[in-house]
């Protein structure tokens, strides 16, 4: 990843950006996000197949934005998250530089949003293979079995909201679960409260989830909550032929009415 380090160093040296968001190996060897502000420290940056956190979550974090213009190491899911954030007016295209990383781990030349859009459009946007297999297994179950599966999984949930915090698209400063006048979602982490929380989370991400799997990766108790949003990604594609995060001018599928929308799912 010499190219990445070189490019990051340049961007910091010529003051194009004030911070580079990328990955480093911590002292115990665990890969984690790095925030490089000093060009001399650019050498800390690495990229390998263990760098799977979706870094776009930091583009809306106050203390990171405070640095100024940000460069971000961006694999396909990160690029798609960036598109989502721009289209939902959470981010200005001018406030970032994208250090794109191709599927085989090489630095891409992403000069602007249009080039990024071109790269995204050429890519396979369906759910990643490893998740497709899990979803196919789940979809073999009948509705009762599926419900029982999720009830068992969700009973483990402790409502730490790591899934929400890890997701770039969960940027609301006041999440519905935090509203208590009226209280929409029970605060308690019991079967009922957990079910409602996960249904809410999945519905708010329907048509907005870009299939990075970050929520499931973040969950400390190992609930595969990413499969809920990925299932909806599949369904949104089936009905509307749209994948999230493909352009900076997208309208959210589920909050936009088109006269020719299919309505076959309305009973």
């Amino acid at each position, binding site marked *: 990843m010499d190219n990445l380090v070189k490019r990051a160093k340049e961007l910091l040296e010529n003051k194009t950006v004030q911070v580079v968001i990328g990955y480093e190996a*911590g002292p*115990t060897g*665990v890969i984690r996000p790095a925030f490089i502000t000093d060009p001399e420290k650019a050498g800390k940056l690495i990229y390998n197949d263990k760098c799977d956190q979706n870094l776009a979550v930091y583009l809306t974090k106050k*203390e990171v934005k405070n640095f100024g213009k940000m460069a971000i190491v961006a694999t396909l899911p990160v690029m798609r998250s960036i598109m989502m954030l721009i289209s939902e007016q959470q981010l200005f295209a001018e406030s970032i530089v994208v250090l794109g990383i191709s599927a085989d781990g090489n630095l891409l030349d992403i000069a602007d949003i249009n080039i990024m859009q071109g790269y995204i459009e050429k890519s396979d946007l369906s759910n990643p293979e490893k998740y497709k297999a899990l979803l196919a297994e789940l979809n073999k179950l009948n509705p009762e079995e599926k419900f029982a599966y999720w009830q068992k999984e969700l009973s483990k949930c402790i409502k*730490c909201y790591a899934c929400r915090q890890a997701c770039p698209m969960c940027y609301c*400063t006041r999440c519905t679960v935090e509203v208590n006048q009226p*209280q929409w979602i029970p605060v*308690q*982490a019991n079967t009922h409260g957990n079910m409602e929380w996960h249904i809410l989370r999945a519905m708010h991400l329907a048509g907005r989830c870009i299939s990075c799997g970050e929520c499931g990766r973040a969950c*400390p108790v190992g609930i595969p909550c990413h499969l809920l949003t990925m299932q909806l990604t599949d369904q949104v594609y089936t009905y509307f032929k749209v994948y999230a995060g493909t352009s900076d001018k997208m309208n959210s599928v589920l909050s936009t009415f088109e006269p020719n929308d299919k309505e076959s799912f309305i009973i």
Partner: protein
Amino acid sequence: METTRKLIRKQSVEKLYNALTSNRQVYAPVVAADKQIEYRYNPGFAEVTFGHIRSTLSVKNVVFPKVENLFFYTNARSESTITDIDMSRIPEVVLWGAHPCDNAAFDTLRSIFCWDIKDEFFSKRLEKLAVIGLSCHLSDEYCFCTSVGLSPDSKKGSDILLSLLKNGDYHADILTEKGNEIVKSAADLFETVSDEKEVITEVKQKFSHEQVTSKLSAAFEHPFWVENSLRCIGCGACAYVCPTCACFDIQDETRGKNGKRYRSWDSCGFGLFTLHTSGHNPREVQSQRWRQRIMHKFSYMPERNESLGCVGCGRCSSGCPVDMNIAEQLEALQNI
């Protein structure tokens, strides 16, 4: 009480476990289908693990459940009634096979819940709890009990502490009256000690907690906090898996005329935790919340509760989605 040491043979451990599960709720660790270590009530002995390093969640929920109902109410136009929780229904529980760090945490929790007013729910649950601890013969890079004044075989918090011997038998240190009662109920299983050696893991000391505490008193405004918490995403994972984190939220849940008030786990890592009704938030950004987490455990608690707020179990670090390694940060803090 004078503590005594006995021997319990490998085969007798199973008999003891079965005797306890026959008339009590025994909360014991098992390896779940997804390889996570979970505690369950009365699993079959064959399922119980003796070789785990740390369970994903701590065992604090036996005294501080993730949801605790405080009372039920009915709101009628003319009058409202409150029904208290029947404390006599809180069951006797035997915690089986929990490690010394987790057991020491009950003392830490007591120093919080019974600091001024004795919390009745916590106290009742603790009173009904007997702890058969298990010294650690395994550890990993996240463990740091020896940096916070404990060790892989510390006795704090256990009523009986089992320690594995080279030949597979166990030493049983009988530490309290509760422990003694259990031993008496199965006296024939406990024998005189042999000179077989114990297998106790070694945990390297990473920092001096005294030094960390002394450094923290002048570190409130240090740039360390922002630099080292940029990657923190502000979830509750670290607090919820932690055996000593005790913050809770109180909520009412009403259906028609009836409702209940309960408390449930909360975390100082959440932005909402300190948000005032006015809109002002004294801990506006994540670095301030991360600072609070460390300050509370290593500065405010030693000062006010005469107890550290951390037992070195390493869960917050192994469970954190972005590798906020607390031992690494404490090591750095002792030298700032």
